[in-house]
């Protein structure tokens, strides 16, 4: 399984070997990610591809939540990217890698357009508004058979073109190869998202979340920054959509319904949105639970129930998500150890 960065134990104090290992953790991470598909069965490889795509989806969602707004339309925005890329490839004959990029741009453009009505709202009004906007887009796909294919959606979408050179030939129909393609695209996207968050723009997003009045008073145009976060997040969601469309080869309105949005919410919330790796942790852990535990136990039909219970329990008892579990447990352990040490030295 891919080891999320945050899950690695901090062995830094354990000696020089530990420290070097800690320094080299990106290398280990990439080695693990590269080795991963060869340890999996064919169907698990397919799931790994979707998992990588979902990592990008949920990470881009987190960028939007940085400004404090929770959208219910993010999966539909992903769908905009998927539909746009599929249509460009199918009907306009645009080569697939380019169509994916244009799909992302299309998603960003739709988001920019939607930001005018949506960012007049905040909080729960924004939530409901984004839900309504997403449903409208989905109903348009459903209603207009030409060009969107109606309720059945689009089928036989052009696959990612094979690479055929003299000594190298890669067939992207193979999940392993598509896994690496997705991994490269998603890693690059995550890097960009990470840099954005660490930049001045990202800091401004945080400022808008926690102190929007104060941010405004020092000259931050909160509307424009919220729109910027929405547009960037939507661009990457659109890229995720393109990766999805050209992998599965079919898209339909149901695939981007609010049920799917619920899973994104669950991943983000269970993982925790305070840090960059939180939502990634959420999607990885829940997918692993889902695929290994539920499928193995034959509890597939119980999946929504278990997801629902996990969602409720994490909102109630783990409001900062899985990412807070490590530090919390560590604090608990240290307090216990410290407490017993204190009790041993001076009984109080």
């Amino acid at each position, binding site marked *: 399984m891919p080891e999320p960065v945050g899950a690695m134990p901090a062995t830094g104090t354990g000696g020089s070997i530990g420290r070097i290992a800690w320094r080299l953790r990106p290398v280990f991470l990439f080695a693990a990610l590269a080795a991963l598909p060869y340890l999996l069965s064919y169907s698990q490889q397919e799931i790994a591809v979707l998992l990588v795509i979902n990592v990008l989806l949920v990470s881009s969602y987190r960028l939007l939540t940085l400004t404090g707004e*929770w959208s219910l339309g993010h999966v539909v925005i992903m769908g905009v990217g998927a539909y746009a890329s599929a249509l460009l490839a199918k009907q306009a004959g645009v080569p697939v890698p380019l169509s994916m990029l244009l799909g992302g741009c299309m998603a960003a453009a739709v988001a920019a357009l939607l930001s005018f*009505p949506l960012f*007049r*709202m905040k*909080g*729960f*009004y924004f*939530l*409901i*508004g984004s*839900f*309504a*906007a997403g*449903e*409208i887009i989905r*109903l*348009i796909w*459903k*209603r207009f058979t030409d060009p969107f294919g109606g309720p059945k959606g689009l089928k036989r979408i052009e696959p990612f073109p094979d690479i055929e050179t003299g000594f190298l030939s890669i067939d992207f129909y193979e999940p392993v190869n598509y896994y690496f393609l997705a991994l490269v695209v998603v890693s690059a996207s995550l890097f960009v998202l990470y840099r954005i968050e660490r930049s001045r723009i990202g800091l401004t997003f945080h400022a808008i979340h926690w102190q929007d009045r104060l941010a405004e008073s020092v000259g931050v145009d909160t509307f424009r920054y919220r729109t910027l976060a929405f547009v960037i997040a939507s661009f990457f969601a659109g890229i995720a959509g393109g990766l999805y469309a050209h992998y599965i080869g079919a898209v339909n309105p149901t695939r981007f*319904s*609010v*049920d799917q949005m*619920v899973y994104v*919410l*669950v991943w983000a*919330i269970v993982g925790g949105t305070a840090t960059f790796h939180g939502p990634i942790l959420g999607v990885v852990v829940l997918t692993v639970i889902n695929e290994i535990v539920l499928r193995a136990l034959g509890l597939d*039909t*119980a*999946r*929504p*129930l278990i*997801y*629902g*219970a*996990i*969602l*409720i329990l994490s*909102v*109630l008892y783990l*409001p900062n998500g899985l990412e807070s579990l490590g530090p919390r447990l560590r604090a608990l352990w240290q307090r216990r150890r410290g407490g017993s040490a204190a009790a041993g030295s001076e009984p109080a």
Partner: protein
Amino acid sequence: MDLLWQTAVNATYAASYMALIAVGLVMIFGVMGVINFAHGELYMVGAYCVVFLYAQENFPFLLAVAAGLVFVGIVGIVMERTMFRPLRDNPLGGLIASIGFLLILQTLVVFGFGRRMGHVPPSTHGKIEFFGAVLTYQRLFVIVAAILLLAALWAFLRRSKFGRALRACAQDTEAASLQGISMNQTARIAMFIGAGLAGVAGALTAPLVSPTPYIGHSIIVTAFIIIIVGGVGSLEGAVIAAVLYAFVHTFVTTFFDGVIANIVGLALMLSVLVVRPTGLFGARERA
């Protein structure tokens, strides 16, 4: 002309059950400040009470409807106790928890009854005709029941002590608790009524809609549109908006098609959100 009348009759029927659902949602929001995303599933559970008691176990229809109201009301109390009370300071958390609850209810119903459409035979076969329009007794029953229940609720809120406590909590929670009104007790009653109304709407319409475990989705979309158009804190607004929306939706469905009607409804809601977020009839905004 006949078609026009018939559509108006259909719209009246739609307005009556939509009003029950939306008023329930507003009750819950008014007192607890939480948007209950599982409201559509409460409707669905109410419908399945009728599927089980009336269609499968052959109890009288009215008894099954009453059982639907009480059972779903109790489900509401469970939601209040387990989720909304601990999350009282966290409205977004309450909303997200209710999404989790929605998934649980859906799955339980799938386990109990399967994914397929539940078939409920009509409880009466009579119908009345006027001006060329047909109104079956089954639909008339929904309209009458909705009017009676909403009138009863109105009287309860205006006249009884509980009702006044409820309205006080909706206006200002802190001031209400300073007056010695128990927030927990009030929230429990509001949740019972709010959920019960959704449940009874599902129970009443079960013979007319062929319920599935996934029917809640379209219900919650409708309910959102209505409460946003009516103004989220306002019970009267919800009723008026339900009538308005039912007429718009039914007429557009009849003269264009259902998907266009949904798009029109959502666009209506979006434009209300943009132009007047407090709703057409809501006076003030509740944070």
